[in-house]
């Protein structure tokens, strides 16, 4: 019985506020005659018509693939560059001013530059996403590797654990809480850049489609695209949460124990 009550309370916590907002939106917009704020009912109809169609493969899939490619390339580069920098104080001293500079450049201004270099194809958009979201991941990797406990390093030295094994059992694991934090920040930046880069110059993708709807005054469809992006954002952050739970199970437990 208590279990049922608990589950009910949790569901309430998750869904109550969204449900209230939904109902409020639905009710207040019911008789709307405003061209730019159509009734929610119309938006939902447009949602079904627009997205439950071949747009799935034409726009959503390409967007997600670009997002995945840009994000994963950035993760890989962050690890490849970040681990050696985390190990070497001297390398950090030289590299950090440059890293701070690159991080300070708003990634969106790279879009025109990359368009000139690599055109409107996927490459430029993947590059923009990777360039934008790598910084929190790179800086966190460096910090995570730098702060690996010295006694664990001594332990590895004593038991002669070196090379790739050491990277696997010590460095990456010890740095994983920071790396994952960087990945979470990086992912939200990556989503923003995916949309914006598609709005600039593209022939498909979610950002492109939303801009097309806006330019052709298909306002309910435009709103439905925004709703869809929100849902994709939620789904990706849930995916990230699952990844965290798997990778950082030890960390949560160790932290609870203090």
């Amino acid at each position, binding site marked *: 019985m208590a279990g049922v009550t608990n589950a009910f309370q949790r569901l309430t916590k998750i869904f109550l506020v969204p449900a209230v907002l939904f109902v409020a939106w639905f009710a207040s917009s019911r008789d709307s005659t405003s061209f730019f704020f159509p009734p929610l009912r119309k938006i939902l109809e447009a949602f079904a018509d627009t997205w439950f169609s071949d747009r799935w493969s034409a726009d959503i899939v390409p967007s997600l693939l670009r997002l995945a490619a840009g994000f994963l390339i950035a993760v890989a580069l962050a690890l490849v560059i970040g681990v050696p920098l985390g190990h070497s104080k001297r390398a950090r001293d030289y590299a950090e001013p440059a890293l701070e500079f690159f991080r300070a450049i708003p990634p969106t201004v790279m879009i025109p530059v990359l368009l000139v270099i690599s055109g409107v194809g996927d490459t430029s958009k993947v590059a923009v996403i990777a360039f934008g979201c790598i910084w929190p991941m790179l800086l966190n990797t460096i910090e995570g590797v730098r702060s690996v*406990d010295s*006694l*664990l390093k001594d332990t590895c*030295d004593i038991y002669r654990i070196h090379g790739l094994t050491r990277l696997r059992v010590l460095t990456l694991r010890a740095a994983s809480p920071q790396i994952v934090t960087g990945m979470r920040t990086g992912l939200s930046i990556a989503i923003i850049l995916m949309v914006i880069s598609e709005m600039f110059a593209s022939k498909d993708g979610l950002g492109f489609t939303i801009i097309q709807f806006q330019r052709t005054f298909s306002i309910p469809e435009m709103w439905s695209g925004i709703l869809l992006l929100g849902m994709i954002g939620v789904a990706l952050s849930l995916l990230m949460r699952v990844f965290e739970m798997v990778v950082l199970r030890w960390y949560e437990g*160790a932290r609870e124990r203090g």
Partner: protein
Amino acid sequence: MLCVRHLRKVYEASGRSVEAVHDVDFSLRQGELVCVVGPSGAGKTTILRCISGLLTPTSGEVVLDGRRVDGPPEGMAVVFQDYGRSLFPWMKVRQNVELPLREKGLRGPERRRLVDQSLEAVGLAAAANAYPWQLSGGMQQRVAIARAVAYEPEVLLMDEPFASVDAQTRAELEDLVRSLWTRLGVTIVFVTHDIDESVYLGERVIVLSASPTVVMEDVPIDLDAVRDQLTTRSEPRFGQLRTRVYELIQKAKEGGQPASPQLSTPSR
């Protein structure tokens, strides 16, 4: 078997140099259990880190089996004071113990045998699948001991391993070290600041001076080989030895030096 020869360590920091260890000289035979005690700040940990090869001496040398130590040598295990930080929190107890064996290149069945045996020996067979942070401090230190024992080292260094466990656990762990030592015939250097502990555990107690450190005296402990928390500690001889070490430590704290030129600190 293990020789520490004229070990000297000077720490350099921002233009200032501090001589932590002046001239420390002692040696261990194969299979000996020797305790090293000294007042706090006597450079005990520095000496141990030099022996383990984690720290390079400023001058002098450590020789193990005829070879000069210039990095962690093969066949050496260390149990650190800070047990909480020396275990990998992302690995279960069994994996923690097994990891060094993997690196040693032992095969699966052999590894399993050694892990089971050593966890059994420290009384933690039931906790093999727990994470270290799920265990109490004393149990965590047992895991660190099990890891060292499973490794089958020739030399085992212990750096104030029981300094932060409670008194009862401490007594149990002391007996555990004695029994493992008797059973395995491993050479043990046991660093502690606890005078009673050093006399109870050691075959010899090396008393250090305050920093810059030299050896005050090398006290042989002529107690029975089989020791018991109750009877050994109440023997008159235990009391005499304890008093002797205590006096030496007091003298060391007051800045005293060895009474007479010994073999260990040749006059110059």
